């Protein structure tokens, strides 16, 4: 399989035709997606037309852009004009937006070819893709296990070789956690680095779009294409986009790398034996913490200055997040009321129509979060829940600021565990703990990414998370490239072996 970078280069130089590249990937989807269920919609005909116009451009001597002919998948919560955008919900099963999301426009303008829309936990609420109204996505490494979530479809699509690139959205870890569970690279950029215009909102002050790729260089390339100021998103940051590719070869000599002690069990200060797992946060697998420490060792060997740092507020992140995000969601999802678009169940009056529509249109987890958020904002509870959680958010910001005074980047596990089996985490708090390590960056808005680094239980992929201060994507990518060079090779996904009997 080629990288996105290689495909674009070949297509731009006329060495390969976009149409031929596309057919290769469509063929793989055709063959294997019935096992994986990464896609809600495959837009083969539209993709063929797009690839043909890329090839036409090349033959006319025009440059179709840095992602010329690269097949790409969008998480099915990004608006695509005239193409269903379901959020894996009955509520929007029939809805086709009248406009393209800004990232979709950016990818198209860069020459990427959309091949489909990927499965997710309904409205991006979940960590396993089990909450999709259209059935779960399976992990290409083990079809009896989840790919993570909520962007599980995008992660699985890249891991299965259905596309070299996919976009996901990350509200509490929804790019990084599935990237870790599927053995690929996933980036959550700085909040505001990538436009949210056209991303169906889950929790507006957390949501951020980012790329999935098989390697760091492809992820950096995609990140560069989708980053930048969008006047249509008031929270979009108006600063220039750096050359991310240039950051990859820089080396980590002298970079200060802090291992978050709360998420790795103490870590070390130079010495392997100085740490111990005494204060490892509940639910984080010891062998995953161990992979992070090995990653830190590898960076030290490459010349980085590695230390252990405490970020105390990360222990409260989960709680703060599971109050604020549902609160925002309760408001963002109010509009699905049966009036303007999507599902309607008729009622004797508008109020009944609203209640019946929302009963039928939303799944269990979405209903639970809407009600949780409604409660957290309601009269008499605002201060105790939402208000307090916003203060914890500030505490997180301050703790990170303190850590970044001493370190350029931080390390932690991405996910507390490797890919788990379907149904294994049905208790809500158990499922929510999947996001323990990723949530702090969503609270602070800072960038973070997951890079594969070895394996854990049952030889399944483990991801190491690299965290950086706001707009610190370049340093983060420099470290990611170094880790990628040092990482032990991953076993190949088993999905090609055809073991399709597993499932939910």
């Amino acid at each position, binding site marked *: 399989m080629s990288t996105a970078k290689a495909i674009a280069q070949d297509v731009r130089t006329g060495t390969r035709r976009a149409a031929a590249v596309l057919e290769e990937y469509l063929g793989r989807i055709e063959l294997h997606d019935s096992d994986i269920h990464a896609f809600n919609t495959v837009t083969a005909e539209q993709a063929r037309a797009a690839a043909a116009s890329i090839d036409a451009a090349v033959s006319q001597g025009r440059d179709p852009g840095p992602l010329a002919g690269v097949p790409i998948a969008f998480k099915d919560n990004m608006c695509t004009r005239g193409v269903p955008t379901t959020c894996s919900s009955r509520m929007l099963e029939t*809805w086709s937006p*009248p406009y393209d999301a800004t990232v979709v426009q950016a990818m198209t303008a860069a020459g990427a070819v959309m091949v489909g829309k990927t499965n997710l936990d309904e409205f991006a609420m979940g960590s396993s893709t089990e909450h999709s109204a259209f059935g779960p996505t399976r992990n290409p490494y083990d079809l009896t296990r989840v790919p993570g979530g909520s962007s599980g479809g995008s992660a699985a699509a890249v891991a299965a070789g259905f596309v070299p690139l996919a976009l996901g959205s990350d509200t509490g870890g929804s790019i990084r956690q599935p990237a870790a569970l599927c053995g690929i690279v996933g980036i959550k950029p*700085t909040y*505001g680095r990538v436009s949210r215009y056209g991303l169906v909102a889950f929790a507006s*002050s957390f949501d951020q779009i980012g790329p999935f790729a098989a390697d760091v260089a492809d992820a950096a390339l995609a990140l560069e294409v989708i980053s930048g100021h969008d*006047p249509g998103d*008031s*929270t979009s*940051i108006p600063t220039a986009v750096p050359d991310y590719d240039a950051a990859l070869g820089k080396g980590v000599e002298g970079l200060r790398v802090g291992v978050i002690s709360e998420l790795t069990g103490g870590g070390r200060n130079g010495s392997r034996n100085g740490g111990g797992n005494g204060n490892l946060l509940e639910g984080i697998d010891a062998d995953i913490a161990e992979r992070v420490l090995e990653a830190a060792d590898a960076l030290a060997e490459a010349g980085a200055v590695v230390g252990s740092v405490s970020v105390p507020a990360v222990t*409260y992140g*989960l*709680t703060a997040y*599971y*109050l604020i995000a549902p609160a925002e969601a*309760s408001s963002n999802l*109010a509009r699905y009321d049966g*009036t*303007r*678009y*999507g599902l*309607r169940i*008729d*009622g*004797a009056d*508008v*109020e*009944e*129509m*609203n*209640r*019946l529509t*929302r*009963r039928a249109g*939303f799944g269990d987890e979405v*209903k*639970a979060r*809407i*009600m*949780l958020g*409604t*409660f957290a904002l*309601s009269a008499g509870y605002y201060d105790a829940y939402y*208000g*307090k*959680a*916003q*203060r*914890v*958010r*500030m*505490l997180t*910001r*301050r703790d990170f600021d303190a850590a970044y005074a001493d370190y350029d980047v931080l390390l932690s596990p991405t996910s507390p565990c490797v890919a788990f089996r379907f149904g294994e985490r049905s*208790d*809500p*708090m158990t499922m929510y703990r999947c996001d323990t390590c990723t949530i702090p960056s*969503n609270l602070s*808005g*800072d960038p973070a990414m997951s890079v594969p680094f070895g394996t854990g239980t049952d030889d399944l992929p483990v991801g190491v998370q690299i965290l950086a201060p*706001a707009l610190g994507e370049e340093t983060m990518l420099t470290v990611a490239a170094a880790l990628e060079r040092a990482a032990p090779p991953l076993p190949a996904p088993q999905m090609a072996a055809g073991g399709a009997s597993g499932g939910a």
Partner: protein
Amino acid sequence: MGDQTAAISTDQVAHVARLARIELTSAEIDHYTGHLGRVLDHARELEDLDLAEVPPLAHPYPLQNVFRDDVAGAPSDRDEVLNQAPAASDGQFEVPPVLGGEA
């Protein structure tokens, strides 16, 4: 329910479901009372934190004064928009009767 220590009661869940306009059976109310209760029980850990001196943070990145100029752009195509509506007539969205107060 009689449990004094529960973080949320079935009555409160029923009230919240009305606020959120979600129709629920009483069995479902019990189910969500359990679900929400587990999350809110976990949230009690925040009670130990002294946050009096910590201001709330609403926006993760500190931007302010973001505007657009008062210049009209192209409106949406009405047919395209109404084609997605569950019911439409006379160029408008059609809904069942609206009861209660006039807003």
